[in-house]
């Protein structure tokens, strides 16, 4: 089974993404701050990361940068309320696979995630 890591400090968002992604038949791992997210990234083999930009401890861009240095192959999707052009450019330059802005539609997220996880994602 494939694994997806959600890093977001808002429990409502984690809850929502958890339910949406479980429908894809994947294991969903959760982290509520940047440091915790990086730890999970170290310990586990992951297939997709959904990453918020504004995070306690270590902010999202910094998390992205660190993850990219360790393993450039895992798709990392920024999912954040920060929608300014400069933020989007910064995220993509640091190696984000995609940059999505909140608020988001659960159905849309599900469809997109299925695509990033490849055809084998759906159970």
């Amino acid at each position, binding site marked *: 089974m494939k694994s997806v890591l959600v890093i977001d400090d808002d429990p*409502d968002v984690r*809850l*929502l993404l958890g339910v949406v992604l479980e*429908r894809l038949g994947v294991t969903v791992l959760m982290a509520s701050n940047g440091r915790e997210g990086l730890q999970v990234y170290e310990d586990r083999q992951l297939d997709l990361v959904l990453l*918020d930009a*504004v995070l306690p401890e270590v902010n999202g861009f910094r998390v992205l940068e660190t993850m990219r240095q360790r393993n450039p192959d895992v798709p990392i999707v920024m999912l954040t*309320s920060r929608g300014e052009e400069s933020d989007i450019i910064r995220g993509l330059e640091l190696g984000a696979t995609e940059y999505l802005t909140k*608020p988001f539609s659960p159905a849309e997220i599900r469809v997109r995630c299925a695509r990033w996880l490849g055809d084998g994602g759906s159970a």
Partner: protein
Amino acid sequence: MDDETRRLESLRALQLLDTPPEAAFDRIVRLLAMSLDVPIAFLSLIDEERQWFKARVGLELEETARKDSFCRYTIQEPEALIVEDACADARFVDNPLVLGSPQIRFYAGVPFHAPDGAPVGSLCAVDVAPRRLSPDELRLMQDLRDLAEMELVRRQWRDVVDGFRESEQRWRILSDGNRDAVIIHQDGVIVDVNPQMAKWLGYPDAEVLGRLVAHFVTPASRRAVEAASHAHTRFQYEATFVNAHGEAVPAELLSYPITWRNAPARLAVIRDLTVQRQLQRHLEAARDQAVETARIKAELLANLSHEIRTPLAAVAGMAEILGETLLGDTQRFYVDSISRATTQLLAILNNALDLSKAEHGRMELDLAVDSAVAISESVIDLMAPPALQKGLDLQLAIDPDVPRQVRVDAVRIRQVLANLVGNAIKFTPSGHVRLTLRMASDSLLWTVIDTGIGIDQIQQERIFQPYVQADASTGRHYGGTGLGLALCRELVTLMGGELRVESAVGQGSCFSASIPTEIVDPVAWAASESQFVGVPIVVVGAGDYWRSILSLLQAWRMEVSWWDEVTPIGMDEDRLWLVDEEWVRHVVTGAGFRVVVAAGPTFVPPAGTSHLIKPLTPAKLAERLQQAMQRPVVGTSGDATASRWSMPVLLVDDSDDTRILAERRLASLVEPVWIARSGAETLALYRERGPSVAVVFLDVQMPGMDGFATLREIRRWERERQVWPPVPILALTAHAGEEAYRRSRAAGFTGHLVKPVSQLEMRVTLHWYGRFRQRPVPDDSIRDLVSDYVDRRGAECRMLVNACQAGDWDAVEAIAHRVRGSAAGYGFPLLSELAEEVETRVQRRDLTEGLLHVWQDYVQYMALMGGGTAHEVRLGD
């Protein structure tokens, strides 16, 4: 004084000279003549010139010259003068009384003394033949002389006694004739009273005399009476007496120390206070009555004002709508007059209402974080038209160090300042009116200075009293009710501050309101305009006011030069130029120069210059300078000239006037607008078209089924018919304020609108509440999560409100940011949009109470929807 003078004085004090004969002395002289068997005896008194006979026997003369008298020698003798034969004595041989009648040969005299011991005369025995005087005879003479002297002493005592009788009589007359009761007591024992005392207490004298004063007073008064009995000075106190009928009689006593029959005593004048007390009670009752009447009047006024406000708001609204239609000049003049009059009336009404509220302690402060600068600016904007109309220069000068955010009641402060500035404009025929703001320790200090008619010293004390204008004729000349300043003082006092006035007749007035405040963000407000740092600017203007503008520009860290010389000035392209209209003719303008001219609205600026319309406010100044710097102005929200939304709304109001006004407003924004005039009509209409109605505007006060009842019926019908989502129902009320808002929500209303609703308010309301019911079907997979999500929003909403009240903008932003990210995902895109609006506004420090209400209302509405698990009815079909 020599002996003779003293002797003469004693003599006169006897008051015997030249008085008729008196038996007491005649008897003594007669006795002497008989005892010595002499033909002549007399009692003589010696004054400066003569000897005068008080009593005499055998003598025709009443007096003789002193120099001829024997007695003038006698009074010098200690014992007696005895001349046995005058013809043998050298002193008397040629004396006319010896030579002629009565032909004295023998003389014996003993000195006669006044009671003080002075020899004033002598008692004498005379014979026409020589003889001797035996020692027994001399003693007899001396005894008789002593008797005469005793008569003098007796007389003196008689005078004393008579004087005493007289004075007693006098006191008697005084005390008997007195309306007050008088008693004399010694050691607290009554020794005498006047008749009034008996009349007053109803006891006969016999029962009073010899009794203790304390016996006639209540036990509570005894101590005071006893203390007064032993005092040594004049003493005033109150005591309650008990009369013969056992009734308590309040009295005031004035007690004097006196001497009564040679012993210390006290005389007390007792004044009955019964009437005075009754009067006092009447007065107190009258005062209570007056207070109660005032309270009832205030209540009546409050109710009446509410009643008047509704139709007045309709008039104002209609005039506004009428003004928007195509009108001829005459009609427009009429409409403008109606608008002005209604605005004035509303202001007076509100003043009266607020004053009565404040005076009766029923006004609550609504403290919130706000900008003192923005408050001042809004007052200037408000008062600009009347100032312009009178041709007055309205100025605003704000100290650059005023903190950015403070906690104040903006509405009340604005009310005070608008009143003060409005007053200044009213009483200033020409010149300027200036509003200034600075910090004075922990208080915001606003001053309103004018160059008006001024107020004299006496009137300065009165102007803060309600219904008083400096002078009745002033009222006639300038209009107004005199409520404004009284209200200002009440409001400022309520805010813990102080309102003062300084003024000189003919020179103008200065009102200053200092209002203590909590500083939320201490950063100087002027520091926030960072886009001007280092920008060179030349200010061309003069006077205090322009100096304040100069210090503002300096606070913005602009590179400022000041020009106030009357010489033509050459422009340059490198700098910004800010020029006062008075100085425009001195500057050479032309294309390429960046010139901002500060001038009144009717001023036609020279070509190529930019017109900054007075009165200047920092916001307008910043905007104009920014434009002149050719940078885009940020933060202006697009003025929507949007076409009408297609959104059925239901308007319920029983009063035609206010309904037509609201209908007119609604109709310009949405269609269709359905109308109901009563609760019953509303229900019928809603049952028919309910599911498609986007918003119900429901008047709370209706005869019969009122707004609350109608609301309950609508909800009941929705539940029965499983109509979901429920329709948002907004309360239309005359009551403003946070408390009224909470009441409406507690009653189950979705929101709360205060009549009359302005066009802008209506637009904002429809923008948000109009979409409450548009509920897209949530993603099936998360349906189970929604109700928990909605539950959590309640607590979060309270946190948001608290953070706003505390001015914790970081927390507000964090909540808004988070909710923006999640709400749409759970099927509440409107909440995400609302959160975004809040987030943006809080960043601009521009969050309004209204928007916060929308949030609270929507969160409550989400709960009402039951988190999306209820049955669904699609909208629009």
